[in-house]
């Protein structure tokens, strides 16, 4: 059996938080006789990743995503459970371990603010002990793929956000990490810049077989890049599996937009719910599990004279939002 890239078993992280009233008396009492509240940021999380997987790690704010990532990168020691990444325990052999991973945090910079980009990259070469030949060939490749040449000599502080992210990606990959953590890599970027970043990380994943864990709130990133998603809420895993399966099960009603010949009196019927109507325009919704788009259209055409129509599926974003908001995954799947 090929060993897993990441093997996480029953990972738990509990924080102690000072528990006191936010007034003077409460603060003083806390100094004399401190009271703490236990907060479970991550609770009994288990999953494993194969080499070369590209997985999306999702969850609302405070779900425990960044706490998990901190444990996987060795920044934080868990309260309980095991983590084995590429055969190593992240927080035990820090320097050896971090030489094999890369991380890009969209909200932070790992480059030296006042120096030209190229100087930062060269310093990273020394810090990671990258052999000159490797450094040269990697840099050449990334320069071409990320189009770094236009700003390689400019100080980091003068780069646009998109340029900076491209430089950050290059910086995180110069030492050929086997595992890459991406945290909000496209945050704040325009459509073109986003697409460029996505194409690049997809290339890295495919060509170099780099295992990638992506955390983001931008579900179009996930949709575009990850087959598999892990969804976390309140520190626990809600779902771990194919994005496709998740969408099929939890996708909300599909919509059908109609343009009609005249403005008839519209009603709901036969599993078709009237969402809105405005003159000759109308929108119906239907449950796609029990009715196909073709059937829905046929039923509508039998009743009304349709000139034009459009079928609309909810976006993955809407589906995932529904899962969080309605706590859909907390109930056991039907029939189990």
């Amino acid at each position, binding site marked *: 059996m090929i060993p897993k890239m990441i093997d996480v078993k029953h990972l738990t992280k509990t*924080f*102690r938080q000072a528990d006191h009233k936010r007034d003077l008396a409460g603060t003083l009492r806390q100094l004399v006789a401190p009271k703490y509240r236990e907060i479970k940021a991550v609770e009994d999380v288990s999953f494993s990743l194969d080499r070369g997987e590209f997985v999306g790690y999702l969850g609302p704010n405070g779900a425990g995503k960044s*706490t998990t990532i*901190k444990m996987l*990168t*060795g*920044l*934080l*020691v868990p309260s309980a459970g095991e983590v084995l990444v590429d055969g190593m325990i992240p*927080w035990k052999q*820090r*320097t*050896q371990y*971090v*030489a094999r*991973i890369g*991380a890009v*945090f969209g909200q*932070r910079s*790992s480059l*030296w*603010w*006042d*120096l030209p980009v190229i*100087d930062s990259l060269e*310093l990273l070469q*020394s*810090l*990671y*002990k990258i052999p000159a030949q490797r450094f040269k060939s990697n840099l050449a490749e990334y320069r071409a793929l990320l189009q770094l040449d236009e700003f390689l000599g400019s*100080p980091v502080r003068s780069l646009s956000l998109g340029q900076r992210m491209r430089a950050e990606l290059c910086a995180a990959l110069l030492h050929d990490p086997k595992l890459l953590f991406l945290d909000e890599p496209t945050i704040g970027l325009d459509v073109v810049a986003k697409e460029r970043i996505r194409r690049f990380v997809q290339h890295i994943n495919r060509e170099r077989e780099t295992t990638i864990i992506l955390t983001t709130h931008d579900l179009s990133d996930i949709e575009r890049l990850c087959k598999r998603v892990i969804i976390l809420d309140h520190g626990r895993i809600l779902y771990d599996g194919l994005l496709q399966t998740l969408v099929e099960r939890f996708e909300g009603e599909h919509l059908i937009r109609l343009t009609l010949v005249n403005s008839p009196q519209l009603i709901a019927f036969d599993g078709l719910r009237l969402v809105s109507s405005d003159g000759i325009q109308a929108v119906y919704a239907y449950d796609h599990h029990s009715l196909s788009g073709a059937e829905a259209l046929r039923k509508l055409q039998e009743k009304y004279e349709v000139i034009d129509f459009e079928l609309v599926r909810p976006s993955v974003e809407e589906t995932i939002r529904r899962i969080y908001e309605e706590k859909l995954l907390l109930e056991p799947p039907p029939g189990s």
Partner: protein
Amino acid sequence: MRRTVILYFKLIGIQIRSQLEYRVSFLMDVVSTFILNFSYFVALALILERFGTVAGWTLGDLAFLAGLAEMGFGLMDLVFSGFDPDGFSQFVRLGKFDQMLLRPVNISLQVFGSRFLVRRLGRFVEGCVIFGIGAGLAHIQWTLGKVLYLPVVLLSIVAGMGALFVVGGTLIFWTVQPVVVVNIVTYGGNELMSYPITIYPRWIQGFFTYVIPLVFLNYLPGLYFLNKPGLLDFPPIFSFAAPFAAALMLFLAFQFWRFGLKHYQSTGT
């Protein structure tokens, strides 16, 4: 070891180059640091003009002692800027410390290389000037021993005071915000070392002898340079204890640092 030295100088080099990006502000910092600290000395000189001596120490003696302390502190402030609680607190809060933990290089080395405030040379230069004035006024009889011991004392002050910065920086792992009490022993300790310890109440003398042994770093070696008899409970041989006291302080400080790092990795911020 070689790699450590090379990396250290690379990191420092980057810091210096970054600061030179802002040349004007850099020069103004150096000059103002110099003027600010030198003005304290001028005030002292004016007071002494009226009163003559402090506990039997002339202006020359005092300038020698204060100059030594200032030179040491100025150098320390430069070399240990990374551990300076005020700067280090920012570092932790902005997540830059986490970035360092993600790099395959010894963490203390990275902290040393993370900040190198060249403008603090102003304080070192000011210390040199006062030291020069003091050495001249006090008519020091230079011997080979004194010439050789002087750099040892200077490095001991750097290491010993640096240890206090390391302790202050380590506390950030618990408090995130800098702890003001630490400034009392670092900056306050430096002020205190600029005068003969005998002018202070017994409990302060005791504190800076047995708890934070600053008296071994400056005052006791000072007695040797100035050919003064010791007034404390220490025979003259203790004038040579500076490197030992400093080494012990630095060793303990880094033990505490490692303990703090463990705590940080189990709690985060």
